[in-house]
């Protein structure tokens, strides 16, 4: 294992994770999801050779060389973790918000802002989808 490559890679990945979590907490979970995909793609687009080389670095080789672990794998692992965090954050936010709304306002029609509108449109779309399903029944 090349220690320098491992430390360098770890620092870059840690920075990436911090940026995404920062956006998730302070700005928007959707923006965080977009950033999660866009940053690696942007790097590949701007500096393809270096990025591909970086992603190809083999950090370790597990199970007697049977399972090589590249930065590609680490990126996918970070992705899966953060996608999970973002989705469940979103889901729990929605769930807890729904419970609150139902206590205050049983008709559930209080939302403002772009996010609320977006939620509303998504919710409406889902409702329509459910109606279609019900009609089919």
């Amino acid at each position: 294992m090349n220690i320098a490559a491992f430390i360098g890679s770890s620092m870059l990945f840690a920075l990436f994770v911090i940026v995404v979590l920062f956006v998730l907490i302070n700005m928007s979970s959707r923006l965080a999801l977009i950033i999660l995909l866009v940053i690696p793609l942007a790097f590949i687009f701007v500096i393809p050779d270096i990025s591909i080389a970086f992603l190809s670095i083999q950090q370790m080789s597990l199970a007697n060389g049977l399972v090589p672990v590249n930065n590609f794998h680490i990126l996918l692992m970070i992705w899966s973790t953060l996608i999970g965090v973002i989705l469940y954050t979103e889901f729990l936010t929605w769930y807890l918000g729904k419970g609150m709304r139902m206590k205050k306002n049983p008709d559930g029609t209080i939302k403002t802002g772009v996010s609320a509108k977006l939620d509303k449109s998504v919710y409406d779309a889902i409702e329509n989808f459910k109606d279609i399903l019900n009609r089919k029944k």
Partner: protein
Amino acid sequence: MMRLIKLLLLTIVLIAFINSANATSIREEDIWIFQGSYELGIGERAYLEGFTVKLNDISNGTVPTATLLIYSNSVYMEAFEVDAGVNNEHIYDGELKINVVSIENNRISLNIYKHKSELVWVTDIPKTAFKAGDSLSGNDYRITLKAINGSTADLVVRVGEEEYQRTYNSGDYEKFSEDFMINIVYINMDTQEVFIETLKPGAPQIRIDVGNLQESYEPNDYVEYELVVTNNGTIPLHGIILTTECDDGEVELVTQQHSILDPQKKKKFQIRIKPYIEPVTRNITITTSVEGYDYRGNKYNNQIKTEATVNSYISIEKKVTSKEKTSDNPEFGTEQYFQINITVTNKADFQTAVTVTDVLPPEFIPNDIENAEWSMVLAAGETKTIGYFASSTEPGNFTFEPATVAWKDSGETYTMQSNPIEETFHVSGSRVILQKEISSSYMVVGETIDIILKVTNEGDRDIDISFRETIPDELSYVVGEREWHGTLAAGTTKEFRYTVKAERAGEYYLPETELSLTDENGKKENMVSDELFLYIDDAPTEVDDQYYEQTYNQLDASASYPSDTSVADPDITSIEVMKFLVSSFVSLLALIAIVPTFAYLFISRVYK
């Protein structure tokens, strides 16, 4: 007849009137010549030229007296008593004078002189012509010719501070001191010239030369050589005593005597020393001093140090003899074998246990012995010979290293090597080297590769070679030399090359090539090459992503990269990477979103 009588008379007259004085008589003196200093114990003798002096007895009274006997040519002549006091001198028959120096501890010290006429004077300034008024200077004197009066010459001789006025006739000579004498050789009245020479006392000079010194001496033999003493001086040397000393051995004759050595004469002395036995070869130093006296008893001496090499008491000798192998020997390859004889000798007078080690060239194998090391005990003076045979596995030129013998003496281990063997031995024979190579060990079905056979004859004999290659079923023969029969000359290499085509995929070992060799004597041998590995791969049908990826992963997983941290050869474009990443992202998102989506739908429906 009358003429003959006249001639006879003339001869008689000439002999009667010719001055009998000649140069030699001037130079000789009738004196007591010092013969040497001797120290004698009771019964011991001093040997002189023609005389022997023996100490018969010493009586230790208030004044110790000694009784000496004189022999002339081994015949007893007389006995007399001497002491170290008033009666310390005895003259025998006007010829021999014995002077007692001391009588102490039953030993007597004597100076012995012999009366005889001996060369004393030598030329200082050779014969020189003088005219009236001429002068000549020497070491401490000055001679001036004042005038020539008829047949006499008037000379003024100044010696030191003294001045003498003399008138000399032709042939006159005069001794002015013990160190200076003048001789008027001839006065020529016609030319008014006087020929004068001056004389001074001569001196002996001792020169010592070593002769017959051998390069080295065996420890059980005498170190024996000659010492030649030469009197390089101008007068005889008397009472010569030669003393030999050596710290590393016993001198047989510590002192040797000789009575007289005339100028330019030589005397040979034989020196014999029994060296002490030592385990190492070393140089021993022998100091020999020679002393002698002139007629006045002045001492002259000289010394020489001689170095002689004495060998160790263990000696080793190695002898290598090359022999031809007999024709009925069926062995293939070399034609000579070697007999090696190692002789070890113990020259000491005690037994010694020794270990003899021999080293053979790496190509050699000894016959019938396991290793070339022998331990043995050598009795005093014993010689043992070890003999064995060895033969070379390959032809060429070889040199042999010396054999080594090791032994212990007083707790120390000593080793000695035999003399180096300068000779280079040639071994004739045949030696064939077979190399089999393939142009590539990886090939795809349908491809061709070259198989190369390289046969080298490294020997110095021509050799008959034949082979025929077997081609396995997975390959098919295309073109080239796959069989040959012929003669390969000594020192040459022949290369055979043939092409095969891969027919079926798999991992194979090419069968070994068998070479049949026959040398000039008809001896046969077979030789085989190595088996070569060959991997034949399936032919690639088309560009297959799956195959590519598989290969890529295989390569990646096969740890073919030397370092853990290595960059796989990313033969992939950025678009492909982006595609891969987007698809991976979408897949992960879809996968992770399954559970929350269903939860959302369920909750939404329940709490509608």
